[in-house]
């Protein structure tokens, strides 16, 4: 049998289906626990934020990149390094605003939504909203206050999934008590 080469998998990876279905179990639980889609979206964003806060530390520990010089560099690092590293895909950076403070990430596939169909009666559910939270949380930890939201979603019949990121402001370190 050709299955003899039963070598152990990469210990730094997990099965994508396990990941997708675990996320699905979470969303199903939230739909049970909350009254409406808006509340579920909010909770997903909040949980994503907490995940982002954790993931960025892992990222900083592994990827030896310094601070980004501008938002364009940030966009590139998110798409080409961070997404690749954590979800195994590379979104396209696009639709820059004239001021260079806003851009979109275009995703052709989305590992969170494989095997997923939106349940009827949940048209306002942003199923993958956790991603917005992750990006917001991770960027906040490196001193960037960024607004993140879905503008298109293949789950809702759009041709592509589009996440919009808007830079708001730089954040500063906390000043110690008793100093200015």
């Amino acid at each position, binding site marked *: 049998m050709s299955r003899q*080469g*039963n070598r152990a998998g990469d210990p730094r*990876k*997990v099965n994508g289906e396990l990941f997708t279905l675990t996320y699905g179990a979470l969303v199903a639980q939230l739909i049970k626990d909350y009254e409406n889609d808006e509340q579920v979206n909010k909770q997903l964003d909040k949980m994503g934020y*907490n995940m982002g806060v954790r*993931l960025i530390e892992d990222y900083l520990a592994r990827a030896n990149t310094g601070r980004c010089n501008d938002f364009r560099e940030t966009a590139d690092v998110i798409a080409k390094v961070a997404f690749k590293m*954590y979800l195994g895909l590379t979104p396209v950076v696009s639709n820059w605003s004239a001021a260079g403070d806003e851009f979109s990430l275009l995703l052709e596939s989305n*590992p969170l939504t494989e095997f997923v169909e939106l349940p009827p009666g949940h048209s306002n559910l942003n199923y993958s909203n956790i991603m917005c939270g992750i990006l917001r949380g991770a960027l906040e930890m490196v001193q960037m206050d960024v607004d993140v939201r879905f503008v298109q979603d293949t789950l809702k019949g759009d041709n592509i999934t589009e996440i919009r990121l808007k830079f708001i402001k730089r954040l500063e370190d906390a000043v110690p008590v008793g100093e200015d």
Partner: protein
Amino acid sequence: MSSLTGKQKSSNLEKSLGKGKPEVNIATFAVLFSEIVQYSQNRVHTVPELQNKLSELGQHVGSHLLDVLFLREKGYKREIKLLSMLIFIKSTFWKIVFGKEADKLEQANDDDRTYYIIEKEPLVNKFISVPKDKGSLNCAAFTAGIVEAVLNGANFPAKVTVHWHKGTTFMIKFDEDVIARDKMIESR
């Protein structure tokens, strides 16, 4: 399932197991699982309640996982014999889902309904050190839920619980009917 195309130039026999879909970084899974544990923890009061909650979520995953696997790997025939089913879980299934076979499969000495799958360090416990005030909490209750749903889905109804023993021990207790049925098959 677009991920199946493209990569599958080699014949079905040659492709390795569990490669139906790109894998994700273990850190991504770890932080997701971490949020799930914290969310569940905030909605219950006791350790057994928390483990139940994690098991329920695991069951949701397990029931879907079974469909996905059978759908994808047409080669898997449904197991009919109890022991073959257990071996399938311990080896093939465990390897696809958790990247390695489970460490051990044992049968209880004193009870023909009870089996144990032993895993020194289950994937979900890899990063967890349980604080003293939560002494007995074992987050692999989630994994137990997955196994339970897979067994139920394959028509081997059982209850699966976790215990801190040799790492983590999953105790599988089958329904009486399953054992009776298996004895009939054996004697045929």
